[in-house]
């Protein structure tokens, strides 16, 4: 029998990474919103992500539908286990979307409400996504392919830590995005935040990296039983972080953003390999979670034709809206 499970690991992995990176920077811009120097800067910040954010969120919908199609067990265990967290994430995304649309239409005096909704929605949605990562590491109480744990099992000191780490990470993506898309004093301001958030992110990285093997025997065995090539990942992480720190000090504009993407890719790889081959830890592997081969194949054939086009016009959108965002051109 043919088996496309590994192909689907790659496809879903790519989709989730696309979501994290693209919606990550626009959520990050929302997280930085209250700290902006002026309302004018807030206009610039919003305009820098305005053209692309809803396309970015389509990757989230694809993630949901893709998991149901390829790894239904992940869909049907993660969502019930994270019921409250998923609600908070969706409510955050909705409020944030509405704020996006209505802030520019509101009279200046009433913008505070939408500013708060934009910040609050971004923050809550990001925290919830970070908590999902923490919950994945922590594992799920399952029996006979069903989640049997309680409604708040996902909310532990550890997942609060990963939630905050995600806030720092998306914040950094947002700051380095703004570094790329703005100029002058706004850019300097973004640079300042990039330093702080990078420092914070690395602190969370160290804490989570130590906490996980201490509490999780499976992860400890994987990393510490013998020296594996996996150690390339943390070494690379430190090197990329150092390079990012240096690139912040001077004239680089795109390098910090690209380096941050690199950091996220490394975290992501580290996360997957720590738990590999488990996708619903501690009981179920990718193979246990996979859908029927004929279903995997049926969708795979279509994706091979359609996804190249999706990527092409997505890239085209970014191309159309390339360049710096300026204050005088930003109103709509």
């Amino acid at each position, binding site marked *: 029998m043919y088996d496309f499970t590994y192909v689907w690991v790659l496809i879903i992995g790519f989709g989730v990474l696309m979501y994290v990176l693209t919606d990550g920077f626009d959520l990050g811009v929302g997280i930085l919103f209250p700290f902006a120097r002026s309302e004018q800067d807030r206009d610039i910040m919003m305009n820098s992500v305005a053209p692309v954010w809803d396309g970015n969120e389509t990757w989230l919908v694809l993630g949901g539908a893709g998991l149901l199609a390829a790894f239904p067990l992940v869909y049907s265990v993660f969502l*019930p286990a994270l019921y409250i967290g998923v609600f908070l994430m969706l409510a955050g995304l909705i409020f944030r979307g509405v704020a996006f649309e209505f802030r520019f239409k509101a009279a200046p005096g009433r913008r505070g409400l939408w500013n708060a909704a934009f910040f609050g929605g971004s923050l809550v949605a990001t925290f919830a996504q970070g908590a999902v990562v923490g919950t994945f590491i922590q594992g799920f109480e399952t029996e006979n392919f069903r989640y049997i744990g309680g409604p708040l099992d996902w909310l532990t000191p550890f997942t609060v830590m990963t939630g905050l780490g995600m806030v720092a990470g998306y914040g950094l993506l947002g700051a380095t995005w703004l570094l790329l898309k703005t100029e002058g004093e706004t850019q300097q301001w973004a640079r300042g935040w990039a330093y702080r958030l990078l420092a914070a992110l690395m602190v969370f990285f160290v804490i989570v990296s130590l906490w996980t093997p201490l509490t999780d025997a499976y992860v400890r065995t994987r990393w510490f039983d013998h020296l594996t090539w996996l150690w390339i990942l943390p070494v690379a992480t430190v090197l990329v972080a150092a390079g990012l720190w240096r690139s912040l000090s001077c004239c680089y504009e795109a390098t910090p953003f690209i380096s941050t993407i690199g950091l996220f890719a490394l975290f992501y790889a580290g996360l997957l390999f720590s738990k590999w081959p488990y996708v619903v830890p501690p009981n179920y592997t990718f193979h246990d979670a996979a859908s029927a081969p004929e279903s995997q194949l049926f969708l795979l054939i279509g994706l091979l034709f359609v996804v190249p086009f999706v990527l092409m016009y997505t890239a085209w959108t970014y191309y159309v*809206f390339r360049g710096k965002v300026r204050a005088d051109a930003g109103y709509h």
Partner: protein
Amino acid sequence: MELDPLLLSRIQFAFVVSFHAIFPVFTIGLATYIALLEGIAYRTRDPHWARLSQFWIKVFAVVFGMGVVSGLVMAFQFGTNWSEFSYRSSNFLGPILAYEVVTAFFLEAAFLGVLLFGRNKVPPGVHLFAAVMVAVGTFISSFWILSANSWMQTPAGFELRDGMVHVTSWLEAIFNPSFPYRFLHMAVASLLTGGFVVAGISAWYLLRGHATRANGRALKMTLIMLAVAAPAQLVIGDFHGLNTLEHQPAKVAAMEGAWETRAGLPLLLFAIPDEDTETNRFEVGIPKLASMILTHEWDGEVQGLKEWPAAERPPVGIVFWSFRVMVAIGTVMIAVALWGAWLLYRRRLADSRNYLRLLTLMIPLPFLAVLAGWFVTEIGRQPYVLYGVITVQEGLTPSLTGGMALFSLVGYMLVYAVVFTAGIYYLTRIVRAGLPESLDEPDHAQGRPKRPLSAADTPLDSATGS
């Protein structure tokens, strides 16, 4: 009182999906209309058409935005509240929903940007192409989602192995028995909804003497479309009903309020079905007409609800009355559309102020008809989520508690109340602002985002309502 997670989940699903459904049902029809306007504008180079199109694109942007936001919830709700159903049917529903995302959602997102903000940025032909692509995207989206829904109503092309659905024929599963009827019925419902909104608002403008030339043309072409589509919907609905009779006879029995299996079933105009006594009170009906409609014979036999044990019957009253609401509104729509066509034929449309007033009052009706129709089909398939295979009770998330379900239900109600209020307020402002004077858009530079709502530049809060 013990909180029942099943009941609360059903209320939540009904609330979320009803709220969501009113947006796409409007945007599908409106997208087609906009593509048509763009096409005529492109061919004739007449600015009146482009002006109309520009106005309706603004309305489209707001409604589409609300549909996107509420649709996000739908993508996750299957997993949060109905994980058992999702898991067991994932081998079919997963690929179908994923196909919807990659073939429709991304397409709409990309070309909507060009449609909303690209009029002066891309050649007219590309702009027209974008309008067509958005319209095509909305139909592709409804193709997949109605295929999924129809499969839940009339499952086909699969077998169960250890309780899991395994697809044996993709063609049979996708084009399951009720799909062609449901798809057509819904597509025409979308045209009717979009058509009556366009007609109503055009009439409202004509009554106020605003942009009479453009709105007069809009009303004319919309009325012609409605005069064809409204009666056609009656025929399609009849076929859909016959299909339901074949595959889901219990649903039809509830629609007709028929308890006993009998020949010459009357068509009930009024009744209060009583599930306890298994009878109707205050019955008023036309003898034998229901048998005629359903079997095309005056003395045709129709199965009554008593054929099924009480636990396998849908709730009768709400199905019975939702069906009557839908049919009554449909009848009104046919009458109004034909009256309009007659006025048009006699060239008396512009003077018939009462008719124009009636058209503006019609705006909410198609939405009510669509919701009533979905109530019939969704409540009418109870107690099953996958008809005859999985009940809603079995499909529920095992770990879900009543408290969790209540928390999210109240939460979604609050969130949607805010979104809906803001959206309606904003739509009203756009309509009050009227058609754009000219097509020279201000140069937004970076401010020409592709995100939906910002195509509408009408400032909120600044002007007081007139």
